[in-house]
């Protein structure tokens, strides 16, 4: 067992451990942070695999972009120190069962399968190579998908704005009229939840 291997296992442990905590913790902010570490662990694995560019993109997009977005949205929708509601035990057990079964099924299949490596001169995953492939319009070029993705991003941007934009006042007032009932129901439920929690404590 050499250093590289150790580093690999450490990265794997970091990724999986943080991922695990991220999906189980009841502090939403902590979940976000652990997600962040998990993503960093993945970036580390990319580094370990010598895919520096991908690792960099991982860090930039996920760590720097998405997680920040998530954290912002958490700030927008949550009070500080608020705990996440508990899920029912039955659901948890079912989910564990489903996940474990799925995991085992997949892993067993993967293990049984012997992968064959393609013969051919390896290509350096350098930024230059990637960029050339990405933008070339040749038979194996990715120019078209690249353009499509850019359109998608644009559409997503427009979509975000439209969705997040405040609705016209008329609609709002209508919604507000319909609101009280909903709220009371919510409040009731929350009350019940709180009581349950108190009971548990």
């Amino acid at each position, binding site marked *: 067992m050499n250093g590289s291997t150790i580093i690999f296992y450490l990265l794997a442990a970091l*990724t999986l451990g943080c991922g*695990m905590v991220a999906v189980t913790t009841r502090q939403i902010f902590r979940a976000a942070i652990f997600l962040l570490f998990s993503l960093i662990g993945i970036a580390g694995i990319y580094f370990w695999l010598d895919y520096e560019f991908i690792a960099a993109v991982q860090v930039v997009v996920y760590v720097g972009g998405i997680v920040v977005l998530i954290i912002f949205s*958490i700030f927008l929708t949550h009070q500080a120190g608020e705990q996440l509601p508990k*899920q029912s035990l039955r659901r948890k057990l079912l*989910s564990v069962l489903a996940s474990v079964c799925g995991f085992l099924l997949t892993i067993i299949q993967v293990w049984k399968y012997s*992968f064959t490596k393609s013969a051919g001169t390896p290509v350096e995953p350098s930024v230059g190579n990637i960029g050339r492939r990405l933008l070339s319009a040749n038979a194996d070029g990715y120019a078209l998908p690249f353009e499509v993705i850019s359109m998608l991003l644009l559409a*997503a941007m427009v979509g975000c704005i439209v969705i997040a934009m405040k609705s016209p006042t008329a609609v709002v007032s209508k919604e507000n009229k319909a609101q009280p009932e909903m709220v009371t129901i919510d409040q009731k439920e929350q009350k019940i939840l709180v009581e349950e929690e108190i009971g548990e404590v």
Partner: protein
Amino acid sequence: MQPGIYHLLLISTALFFIGVYGFFTRRNLITMLMSIELILNSVNINFIAFNKYLWANKLDGVLFTIFIMAIAAAEAAVAIAIIINLYRSRQSIDVKHAEELKW
């Protein structure tokens, strides 16, 4: 033992099902979104691993990873926009309250 493709696949599978577990057990939409990010990342790991160990003569895995990241970013943005909108309309982002598609 030298880590190889199997180890990477193990990690990605585990991460995938961790994400799945989170997706099922979380009630908060934002945390569900996080689980989805984990799932997407596990897919990315797969792509990279296959590229590295099986198809080193090609770059397709890498390119797909990049696309997935781009899409994931867009998806996250849209999702968060929806979540915020939802929050605005019903003061809650509990998934329980988003069941308009019921029978």
